[in-house]
């Protein structure tokens, strides 16, 4: 298989024709399971990510029941959680486990691998005009690392002491000491094994994406003719390569502390009546290592969604994306700044207060390129001819959540204000809106937009509309009210607020949130149904359903190895010539030569 991939790679570099008859016929295993074709791997990432997403969202629905009606009995909890919900009342340890695994799954498995893995794989070769990834074999390995890590993570749900429960950040000593909570036993070991595999897969994938974008662009595809999706995927991959190894080092040291008696993070501890011999370590070290990944991770999640949105908004506004170069500049600025802001997660950890000032400064700077992006999206809509496909609706929703959630970052990034809202529901509201909702909306936009490219069939529009509106309304309905419970001082990760009479009057808000959460969760059934129904029964996709400019729509609808029969199209112009004066149609694909006297971008 590796040889095939290399063959493709060589051919692509020269953008020559390709003889396909030499390929052996695919069987089930080589086509669907151990595929080295980027289009199939993209689908593998998507389906795995969607499955993990369903698990993650379902978990949030379970713990929302507890938060709205603390201590009440729900038979459904006992059905799914068994001994962790005796008589239908959720166990506090299981509550923490659900919160932890929900966070881990959504951040890493859905919005990192599911989003970036799917669309980087699908779009990089197709949009830059390459026959496949630089290494099809490594690409396959990257998916299988991810699949293995998903299996390990799901397995951890079934161990006797429960899955990891110390929050998705798994700060030691809590996560290092099985005596401190049951979830820090075997469940935590599996969490660490799973994340180690995950980082391995992510690194292999990212290196492949970077090499492909740099080396395999077709003739004429200069860096400033790349669609913004590709810019976003490239920068995301670079962020991943630079930051994921640091998470791995944090996890490795934690494995040493847990299993081999080292003291990287542990010092002077007496837990459950037992005095530990560890001395000299510091949990703050872990926090630094974790957030050195953790903050770039936010942009690893967000940038691909922003890239997808740029493409979808330009196509469906029938207008060039406004300020193409500013968009590239702001992606690069955000990426650079994302490496120097991690300390804003640690203002009140006991870190030197001087560092707090430095991180406040760098953190608030990120608002500038973010504002540029938001304004550029909005200006792209101005004087457009907006086609409301479901993908376009999700993209506009992304701009809305990106603005709504980004603004509260100005509060949290300010060290002085963070003192009182740190780790409250205000934070939960902030990051779910700016990163969770924006990224998941970007992912939905991508699925609706490129479904025809993936499956050669069209998704149902009406169900798409229904799915969008329920998701959009319930998403805000869940997270907007949380700002207020946070400002009332309610800490996150509380199993129940009933022990504090001062939080009694927040009960109504919690009930509202839970209703929206359950409604929003159930609405995803519409999407799942639409997805699988359209995959098998949807109408056949035309060559270029959205009348888009980018190269993937010049490739045949029926998938083939090598993407294009014959020569790869040559790129003659930038990807955003929509509604260009002098052309009959309101789009000019990238492979159409510049006319005489036409002003090239």
């Amino acid at each position, binding site marked *: 298989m590796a040889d095939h991939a290399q063959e493709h790679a060589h051919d692509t570099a020269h953008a020559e024709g390709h003889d396909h008859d030499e390929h052996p016929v695919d069987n089930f295993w080589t086509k669907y399971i151990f595929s080295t074709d980027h289009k199939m791997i993209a689908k593998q990432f998507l389906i795995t990510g969607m499955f993990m997403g369903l698990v993650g969202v379902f978990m949030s629905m379970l713990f929302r029941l507890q938060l709205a009606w603390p201590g009440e009995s729900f038979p459904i909890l006992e059905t799914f959680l068994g001994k962790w919900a005796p008589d239908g009342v959720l166990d506090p340890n299981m509550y923490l486990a659900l919160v932890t695994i929900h966070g881990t799954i959504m951040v890493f498995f859905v919005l990192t691998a599911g989003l970036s893995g799917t669309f980087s794989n699908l779009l990089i070769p197709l949009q830059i005009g390459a026959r496949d990834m630089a290494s099809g074999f490594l690409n396959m390995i990257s998916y299988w690392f991810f699949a293995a890590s998903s299996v390990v993570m799901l397995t951890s749900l079934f161990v006797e002491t429960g899955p990891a429960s110390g929050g998705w950040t798994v700060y030691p000593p809590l996560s290092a000491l099985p005596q401190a909570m049951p979830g820090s036993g075997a469940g935590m070991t599996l969490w660490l094994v799973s994340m180690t595999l995950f980082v391995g897969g992510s690194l292999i994938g990212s290196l492949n994406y970077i090499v492909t974008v740099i080396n395999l662009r077709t003739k004429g595809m200069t860096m400033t003719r790349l669609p913004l999706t590709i810019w976003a995927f490239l920068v995301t991959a670079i962020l991943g390569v630079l930051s994921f190894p640091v998470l791995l080092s944090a996890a490795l040291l934690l494995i040493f502390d847990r299993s081999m008696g080292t003291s990287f993070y542990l010092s002077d501890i007496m837990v*459950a009546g037992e005095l530990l011999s560890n001395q000299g370590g510091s949990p703050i070290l872990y926090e630094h290592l974790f957030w050195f990944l953790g903050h770039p991770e936010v942009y690893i999640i967000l940038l691909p969604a922003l890239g997808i949105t740029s493409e979808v908004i330009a196509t469906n506004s029938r207008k060039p994306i406004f300020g193409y170069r500013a968009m590239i500049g702001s992606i690069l600025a955000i990426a650079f700044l994302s490496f120097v802001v991690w300390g804003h997660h640690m203002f009140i950890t006991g870190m030197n207060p001087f560092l707090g000032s430095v991180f406040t400064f760098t953190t608030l700077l990120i608002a500038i390129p973010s504002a540029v992006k938001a304004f550029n999206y909005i200006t792209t809509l101005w004087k457009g001819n907006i086609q409301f496909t479901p993908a376009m609706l999700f993209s506009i929703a992304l701009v809305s959540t990106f603005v709504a959630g980004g603004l509260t970052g100005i509060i949290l990034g300010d060290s002085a204000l963070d003192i009182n809202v740190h780790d409250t529901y205000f934070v939960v509201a902030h990051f779910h809106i700016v990163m969770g909702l924006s990224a998941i909306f970007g992912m939905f936009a991508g699925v609706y937009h490129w479904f025809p490219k993936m499956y050669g069939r069209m998704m149902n529009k009406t169900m798409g509309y229904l799915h969008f509106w329920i998701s959009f309304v319930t998403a805000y309905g869940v997270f907007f009210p949380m700002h207020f419970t946070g400002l009332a001082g309610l800490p996150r990760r509380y199993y129940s607020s009933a022990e504090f009479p001062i939080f009694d009057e927040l009960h109504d808000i919690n009930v509202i949130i839970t209703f929206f959460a359950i409604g929003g969760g159930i609405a995803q059934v519409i999407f799942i149904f639409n997805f699988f129904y359209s995959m098998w029964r949807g109408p056949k996709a035309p060559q270029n359903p959205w009348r888009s400019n980018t190269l993937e729509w010049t490739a045949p609808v029926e998938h083939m190895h090598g993407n294009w029969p014959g020569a790869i199209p040559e790129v003659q112009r930038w990807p955003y010539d929509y509604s260009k004066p002098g052309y009959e149609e309101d789009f000019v694909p990238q492979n159409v030569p510049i006319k005489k006297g036409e002003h090239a971008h």
Partner: protein
Amino acid sequence: MTGIITIVVLVLAVITALQLMRVFELSSKARKQVEYEVTDRDNNYQGWLMLLFGIAMIVSLFWMLYAWLPLTLPKPASEHGVEIDSLFKISMWVIIAMFLLVQPILFYLAWRYRGAKDRKAAYYEHNNRLEFIWTIVPAIILAVLIIYGMTTWSNVMSPKNEKEPIVVEVYAQQFKWIIRYAGEDNKLGYANVRLIKDANVVGVDTLDLLSADDKVASEIHLPVGRPVLFRFRSQDVIHSAYMPHFRAQMNCVPGMTTQFQFTPSVTTADIRQDANVQAKVARINALRTEKGLESYAYDYLLLCNKVCGSGHFNMQMNIVVESEEEYAKWLAEQKTIAETL
């Protein structure tokens, strides 16, 4: 039995959906219309829905501010808390203003430029002046907020004292707090988890002379108007000492000591007279009587705000702020370490 019924209902629901889809497909085939293509009618509907959503969003924002802002924390009970709150208010005004500027524009434009077959979009790639403006304007606003924020932060974290602060140790363990006052000399004796034994719950070194007058307590009492220097330790995992009414928080990290200083400015008795607090207490008590729970009196709180295990959600301690005399009287009643060990 319920299991079987649920499965039957689910299967029927899927079959219904499939049949509906069939009807849908056939009818659109009959109308010679391709389902996935966006028509002018779709654009019109969705454009209007976008506008409606935008309006509903703004209206509900104001409704939430009206209904839920009174539920948020009452006025700060510490000197630096006033500074933090004024910075908070200014930042909040800025972000609400930005929200009210950008969101309506977004949804308005989505509605205004909803597509139609006979329209063509403008070809408008960039405008350096516009882009310069929306880079520089946020930069200026942020510069102001950054400078204001950094000044506040340094005032809070390194306060200038006129009086010597009272030193109090907050000691965290799963899942409770223990308080140690520094005693006459206002100096805490050395302590370490390795020295914990029997009644010596915080591991005080009894050979350290400074420790003899230290006092271990199960409630925090603070005199109004005197700076208090909290020193935080943890016995097992990371906890976070959160005192929301004072706008104060600091993590308690095993293996090291962290600190935070503030000056309480309102006594517990006084805050209970505050109109907003009284309204809050009245609302809460109305809810509690309904549920048959005991009635509640407003108290300052110390709570844990870093997940620390199964009892995390109930790791709390009352804080009483009182006059200098009341505080002195209360402290005199507490036993010193020398007396208890």
